[in-house]
């Protein structure tokens, strides 16, 4: 393992300190428990939008803290959910009088810890709701698993609901919009290499030079199938097909296409893949109206990518277009 770190035990804290130094106008950082909070929080009269989860997916979530997106992010250890007291601290720190909405990726640890925090905050009289993101079509949703994982779609939920909160929409409205986005977003990922967790020192899994793993999550967990590596055209088609079939997305639909790098796949490859996805969608008559390309939901230093499709309507499109000012996303 070669990483630019001092000590695996301090990786998260060091990154938070660096973030605070890099973006003093956007955010402030707390330690013990670790929190990333909007510089101007609490924002009076506006719903607090809070997300979080294990670290290692940067810029998710801290990179999305700022005007028009998250009010606070709660980072746990690498690939490990934060505990409820950290989430409660974020709720308390951003308490604005308009309530709080928690955006939670569907992993057992995240769901248990965030929902427990919401319940505890409720006992203290706070109005807190939670929305679970489960956009990964690779996982068969059944009674035999913990259900579909939350992956790239989380970024879109945070941007769109963040805009609604910034407009001053009520907690009920923000929650309803979040649920609508979750219902209309689907993702699928592929890995060319496994990620290396700093304290583990070696990759979570290894793939041969001629192999790729389709349907991976964002923690180095195994995917749906291990297949022979192929050219970009075939790889992108294998990601797109299961997404299109799942909702399904049909001819005439307006969509947002989000082409995401898992951390180590460079933009030159990502743009190539995005172009292929655009062409395949055009061939099916699915109209790409909005785009996002870049490393926004990563898995440390994993080579790979994911595609996310969101079915658009007028309201969601307008909220997507609203201004945003965060470390990782701004327009």
């Amino acid at each position: 393992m070669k990483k630019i770190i001092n000590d695996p035990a301090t990786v998260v804290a060091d990154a938070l300190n660096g973030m605070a130094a890099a973006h003093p106008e956007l955010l402030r950082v707390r330690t013990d428990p670790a929190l990333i909070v909007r510089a101007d929080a609490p924002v009076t009269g506006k719903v607090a939008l809070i997300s979080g989860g294990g670290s290692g997916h940067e810029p998710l979530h801290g990179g999305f803290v700022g005007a028009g997106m998250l009010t606070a992010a709660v980072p746990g250890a690498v690939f490990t959910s934060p505990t409820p007291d950290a989430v409660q601290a974020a709720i308390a720190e951003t308490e604005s009088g308009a309530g709080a909405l928690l955006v939670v990726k569907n992993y057992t640890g995240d769901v248990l810890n965030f929902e427990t925090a919401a319940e505890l905050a409720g006992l203290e009289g706070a109005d807190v709701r939670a929305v679970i993101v489960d956009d990964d079509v690779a996982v068969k949703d059944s009674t035999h698993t913990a259900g579909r994982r939350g992956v790239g779609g989380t970024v879109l939920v945070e941007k769109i609901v963040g805009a609604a909160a910034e407009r001053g929409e009520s907690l009920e409205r923000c929650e309803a919009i979040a649920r609508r986005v979750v219902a209309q977003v689907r993702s699928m990922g592929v890995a060319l290499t496994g990620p290396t967790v700093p304290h583990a020192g070696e990759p979570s899994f290894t793939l041969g030079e001629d192999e790729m793993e389709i349907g991976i999550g964002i923690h180095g967990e195994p995917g749906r199938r291990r297949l022979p590596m192929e050219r970009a055209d075939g790889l992108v088609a294998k990601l797109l097909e299961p997404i299109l079939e799942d909702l399904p997305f049909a001819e005439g639909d307006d969509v947002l296409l989000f082409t995401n790098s898992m951390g180590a796949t460079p933009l030159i490859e990502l743009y190539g893949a995005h172009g292929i996805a655009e062409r395949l969608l055009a061939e099916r008559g699915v109209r790409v109206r909005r785009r996002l390309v870049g490393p926004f939901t990563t898995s440390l230093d994993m080579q790979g990518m994911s595609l996310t499709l969101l079915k658009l309507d007028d309201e969601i499109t307008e909220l997507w277009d609203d201004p945003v000012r965060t470390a990782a996303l701004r327009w």
Partner: protein
Amino acid sequence: MGCTATDMIGALHAGAATVSAHRDELIQLDRVIGDADHGENMDRGFRAVVAKLDTAVPETPGAVLKQVATTLISTVGGASGPLYGTAFLRAAAAVGDALELDGPAVAAALQAGLEGVVARGKAVAGDKTMVDALIPAVDAAKAAAADGAAPARVLALAAEAAHAGAEATEPLVARKGRASYLGDRSAGHVDPGARSTALLLSAFAESRSV
């Protein structure tokens, strides 16, 4: 003879001692089908519970339960922290401000705890989780309370049923949590959460003279 805040604090000290004594066993159980931290996490949590009870002494059973809940939630971590924490939290809500709990109140607290774990973790009977120990425990507690049993007897019968429930998880294939990824390989081992639930109930029951 009811269960007061003092009785409950005694029970929690006994629970912490039991968890500590069985720490390695719980780690072993979790090593084979989970991530080998259950004994460590539970021991850390219950050490914190008794440390907190030594510094802040709540005056009602409900206040004791709530303090235990918040301590477990902030110290255990993983999935067990929220699950055990929620069990104690819902039990606290169920007993309210009463100064002393009778048999039916103890049974109602156990039932509320079970409902909290199910609401949080979504597990059902047969999923190979702590719920497989709690369901029979609650059934036994309710039956005993309906027969007029005192809290000690209610807990003793609940503990007995919980141990039988925990043993019965051995042949099951896990459908929840990290063990569910093992599929058939999770069979042949007692679920660590079911085991710790049974151990705690035994300790609570044995700590009481009545």
